[in-house]
């Protein structure tokens, strides 16, 4: 009975009046190319371009993060603050505010709504759930707020997404290995990530495609390292024990574990394409003279800076793609330099892929770690 009353009460209240929801235009869809086509690379040929009405700076920018509590997220927040503090960026920003809301999607939505209500000009989001932002996007567009998602992007073509091209990353790592094996034959070890994720799938496709296009007689041996250094070290050691000899390794993560496993098993050093952990680059620099040829590439936590740069460009009235392919931050042998693209005095877990030269973005470890954890 009570149920019936509740439903009829709901129907009654609804018939009383739906509050008129404002459907303002949001960004204008224009034709490309983007104002800065080198940094703001469109995801594909079908990507549409946005132009927001030009606003005069300085702007109020917010970062609405969800989950916090691993080194990646903490370094991401530190990097965001470091970027906001760089002189030419600081000149464009009046206020930069960071909020982390944990795993509750309703709390993150409320945080974004709060930023919209408070009149922020742009909001950067690392979304807790790609499907849940439809109503928020509607409200942001109605108020003319620039919404940019990165890392965990949104299932939408109404807000700006900064995507990582995982397949291109898989290709990049593997191309390095293929290019550095002159005889063009032998076994390549592929260390995969957490199975079932789209990231692992896309990177794997890139690896296979590169090997196929390389010609020659390469054979790919797959092991699963789960992006974890300990696991990676073990599975690589096992693979070496079984297969005896590899010509190169393409690894999705835990890259230092690959080098350690090779050293421990007495396997000669071979070309490795891997991620951007500080520990990996340390080993690559140390053993560079012993035949270890590394390429270290990825899109670390510093991608937040690209998202912020995109937001600033959009606010200035520049044309930006709706879906951006993030440039890859890459260093390869013999360019590893201490204090420049890796830091022998920092923890192995620090992500050092912090430079995006095509976007004019670069950070030193000091800049990032030196940021107070205080919000500005």
């Amino acid at each position: 009975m009570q149920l019936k009353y509740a439903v009829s009460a709901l129907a009654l209240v609804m018939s009383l009046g739906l509050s008129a929801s404002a459907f303002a235009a949001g960004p204008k869809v224009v034709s490309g190319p983007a104002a800065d086509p080198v940094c703001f690379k469109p995801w594909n040929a079908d990507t549409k371009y946005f132009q927001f009405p030009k606003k005069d700076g300085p702007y109020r920018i917010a970062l609405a993060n969800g989950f916090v509590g691993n080194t990646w997220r903490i370094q991401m927040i530190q990097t965001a603050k470091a970027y906001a503090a760089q002189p030419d960026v600081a000149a464009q920003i009046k206020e930069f505010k960071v909020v982390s809301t944990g795993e509750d999607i309703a709390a993150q939505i409320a945080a974004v709504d709060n930023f919209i209500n408070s009149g922020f000009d742009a909001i950067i989001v690392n979304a807790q759930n790609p499907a849940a932002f439809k109503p928020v996007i509607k409200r942001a567009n109605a108020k003319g707020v620039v919404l940019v998602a990165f890392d965990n992007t949104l299932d939408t073509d109404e807000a700006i997404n900064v995507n990582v091209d995982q397949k291109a990353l898989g290709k990049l790592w593997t191309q390095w290995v293929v290019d550095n094996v002159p005889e063009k034959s032998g076994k390549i070890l592929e260390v995969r990530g957490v199975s079932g994720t789209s990231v692992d799938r896309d990177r794997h496709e890139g690896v296979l495609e590169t090997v196929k296009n390389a010609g020659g007689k390469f054979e790919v041996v797959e092991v699963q390292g789960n992006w974890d250094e300990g696991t990676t070290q073990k599975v690589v050691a096992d693979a070496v024990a079984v297969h005896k000899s590899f010509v190169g390794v393409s690894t999705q993560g835990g890259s230092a574990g690959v080098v350690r496993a090779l050293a421990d098993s007495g396997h000669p050093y071979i070309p490795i394409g891997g991620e951007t952990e500080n520990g990996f680059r340390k080993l690559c620099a140390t053993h560079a003279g012993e035949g270890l040829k590394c390429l270290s590439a990825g899109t670390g936590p510093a991608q937040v800076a690209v998202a912020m740069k995109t937001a600033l460009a959009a606010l200035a009235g520049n044309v930006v793609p709706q879906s951006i392919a993030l440039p890859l931050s890459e260093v390869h042998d013999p360019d590893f330099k201490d204090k420049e693209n890796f830091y022998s005095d920092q923890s192995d877990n620090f992500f050092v892929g912090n430079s995006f030269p095509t976007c004019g973005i670069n950070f030193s470890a000091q800049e990032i770690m030196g940021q107070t954890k205080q919000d500005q």
Partner: protein
Amino acid sequence: MKTLRLTLAHNAGPLAALAIFILMFAIYIAFHPAGLSSAVVTTATNKAVLLALVAMAQTLPVLTGGIDMSVGVIFVLTNCLASRLVVGTMPEALLGILAVLVAGSLAGLVNGLIVVAGRLQPMITTLASGAVFAGIALWIRPSPGGDVQSDIADFATGTLFDTIPVGLLLLAAVVLAVWVPFRRSEYGRAALAIGSNENAAYVSGVPTRQAKMLVYVLSGLLAAIGGILLTCNTYSGEASATVAGAYTLNSIAAVVIGGTSLAGGWGTAIGSVFGAFILRTIEDLLFVFDLPPLWQPLFQGAVLLLAISVGAIRVFRVKNRLEIFQ
């Protein structure tokens, strides 16, 4: 005069929670860059009402001396279900809402049957059934997505006449349509009697089995209303175990802050609503005070501890203070 004093004393817990909430919300508004506006209040409402409903759902079993570890999961399960059923034309969507409410009540009924007929401990029962519900939620919605009838969603998360958040009205309607009639019924009194002393209630001829059953069914229903509103907030469903866990634990905290005894026999769902509002306002305070992100859990914990201590105000109400030390 005496009646007033007794009423105040009887409702000390919920009233203290209300006072703390008003104080905290006033601080929040005072420091909010946009100040008091219907948009700010609606944003706060949309977030708070979800937890308020789950906290109400938790209150009912707690009153009988039980606990429901599956409220958060039923909340997520009905969210997933609503993202499939509350779609299409208006009549279809309304029918979908009805179906989701029935499904939530059924989930509660399963809990009630196991607790009453199976005579298992509520905590273990609901932990196990919660795992089953989580499995069903994943089966319904393996990856985040789905949709919702947007007129209903925009209405439920919007404002009426540009002033009152609809979410608050819905919450008030639920209190009036579910909690008040229940509390005034024979079963409501029976639920409190069970919490005080189940054996005494049973030998006095109180319908303990029916009351317990009803308590879990209504708990499922309330969680389902929350699940539907979450769907309205997000236009989608997600079978997230972390969200389920967070809401379950926060609902227990809200119940305690609202002055309800975890031992049963004493309390009110209205107190839990204010308890939920307090918890949500603590999060909102993080927005206006610029605290370091890594210190935020510490701050939340400290305020929570303070709020629960005030909830323990009932210490002053006990007739024989020795009871507290037992």
